[in-house]
């Protein structure tokens, strides 16, 4: 049973402006994700959703200025990127990176060896990868292609979920996994996430701009993200409200608080 705790997290990014070398993106995020829970974070573009995802994974561009991230009480912020992953955190990226010359099969096996602490036995590993690829409708030929190179947007997303199913993290952060997917791909990818959820006591933080993926992956909690923090939390009904009313109510309120605090 794992718990990811985010406490009053403030994150800034460097700018080109010498007078203001840092720009604050996250302004006090509080969130606890327990095993067995799925949290959806919804928010307009530029609200800081992806910054939250990358900060959890430890991308060097994002500087945590204050606050804490704890995994089962252990300080995540003092860990390197690879240590966080081996501790059980996983980020499915919105724009997976191409790594030319490194085959998908070599990459998956290296990653599995790192996260499991020992190289998986070759015979069972090959079976395991084949089954996982087939469940996500991925052509076996992709195993010999370079990591993400020349993949379509949908193929990249399927491979992110393939890694999720093979690496079996304790907590998975899915950053706009639904973006750019057609209806069929969205279904396949969502089923993959649901299988991962059903397989164990895992926590999911699902970041999305749209509600459509929530018809496939039912969240326990829905949080509205605006201006770098969570402005409202609720259940599925909050997602329904966003679907009909959009983000306007939340972004307007953000502007009002912005004025009053200045």
């Amino acid at each position, binding site marked *: 049973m794992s718990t990811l705790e985010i406490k009053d997290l403030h994150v800034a990014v460097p700018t080109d402006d010498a007078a203001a070398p840092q720009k604050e993106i996250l302004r006090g995020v509080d969130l606890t994700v327990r095993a067995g829970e799925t949290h959806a974070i919804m928010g307009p573009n530029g609200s800081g959703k992806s910054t939250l995802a990358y900060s959890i994974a430890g*991308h060097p561009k994002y500087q945590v200025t204050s606050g804490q991230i704890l995994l089962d009480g252990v300080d995540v912020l003092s860990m*390197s*990127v*690879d240590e966080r*992953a081996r501790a059980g955190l996983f980020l499915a990226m919105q724009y997976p*990176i191409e790594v030319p*010359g490194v085959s998908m099969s070599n*990459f998956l096996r290296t990653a599995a060896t790192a996260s499991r602490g020992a190289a998986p036995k070759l015979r069972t590993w090959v079976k395991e990868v084949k089954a996982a690829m087939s469940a996500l409708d991925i052509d076996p030929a992709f195993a010999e292609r*370079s990591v993400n190179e020349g993949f379509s947007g949908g193929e990249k997303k399927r491979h992110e979920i393939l890694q999720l199913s093979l690496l079996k993290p304790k907590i998975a952060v899915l950053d706009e996994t639904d973006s750019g997917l057609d209806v069929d791909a969205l279904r396949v990818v969502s089923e993959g996430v649901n299988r991962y959820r059903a397989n164990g006591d895992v926590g999911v933080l699902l970041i999305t701009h749209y509600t459509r993926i929530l018809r496939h992956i039912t969240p326990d909690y829905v949080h509205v993200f605006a201006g770098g923090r969570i402005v409202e939390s609720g259940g599925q009904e909050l997602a329904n409200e966003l679907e009909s009313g959009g983000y306007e109510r939340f972004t307007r309120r953000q502007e009002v608080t912005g004025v009053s605090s200045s």
Partner: protein
Amino acid sequence: MTATTDRPAERGVARHSHGDVPMVSRGQRFTSYDVDAFEVPTGREEEWRFTPMRRLRGLHQGVAATGTAQITVQAADEVLVEDADPSDPRLGEGGIPADRVAAQAWNSVVRATVVTMPAQTRIEDPVMITVTGPGVGQIAYGHLHLRLEAFAEAVVVLDYRGSGTYAENVEVVLADGARLTVVSVQDWADDAVHVAAQHIRIGRDAVLRCTTVSLGGDLVRQSPTVTFTQPGGDAELLGLYFADAGQHLEHRLLVDHAVPHCRSNVSYKGALQGDPAKPDAHTVWIGDVLIQAAAEGTQTFEVNRNLVLTDCARADSVPNLEIETGEIVGAGHASTTGRFDDEQLFYLTSRGIPVEQARRLIVRGFFGEILQKITVTQVRERLALAIEAELEAVGV
């Protein structure tokens, strides 16, 4: 002295080697068999400005040969290997020298090696051509002429090794429908200077797959020129180089799309590692692609990527695309020079792969992309080992 008289000995609107007259187009560059038609370059000229002239050992100043390079050809019986006189009319079919060193080499050879793959013949085993330098302190010139007659198919490995100074012209003439795969390996000893002009002429529907690997030598300068003479030609030029401290590795390519419906793809990747106690490691890549007005339906892409592994290293990269017609399928170029791709590193480490291991994967992947296209197994394995040794020396 020109090799033959039945061809125009000079081409080009203006001499530009001393920079008086701006060149209108890469395709109009000056060419000649006559050494004295070229000024002695000073190093300020566009095509010499990256080259350390003092390390050319006089090749550009008309230095005479003091020795000979040994050229051995190991090939199946169908392949015709000749020791030809410099006046042989076939010489020059690939192209005409475009700089003074190439013209010097052209006029300095006593014999030229002509290797012919006969029409409609598929040569099963790779043709192995080994060029051994003239030895430490010696200077030699050479001329190699590879010709594939119509619909011939062959794989040629060009293996350069040994010591000394060597300037040469290499001609590659592909007749209609011919298919040639070339792997050229510059595995010179540390003292070697190698200046080569490759003149490549591609006939109708002919296909060239060329991979150039430059590892050794003090100074290596290669200038391949690809000319399409008929529609349907297809040329892929891949390169891989690894410069250590003090090495100068220069690749200057010109792909001339003069006729319609040809395809070219250029991809060169290099790594550099310097040493604060020694002169810089230096690489130069010039990629000129010219799409002439008549070359409708052209498809071309060129890319150069440099991985700077340490301080004290300098990579110059100049892609240049000249397009005279809009009726093309596609044209593009890209160039990157950097320490390391941090996003790739983030991606791999975010999957739990330790940083050092991720770095190794990325660097090997960087070279692997070119290496995996070398179809001659023993050459590919030998190069993979050589690169592994280079990387281990820097601890990557």
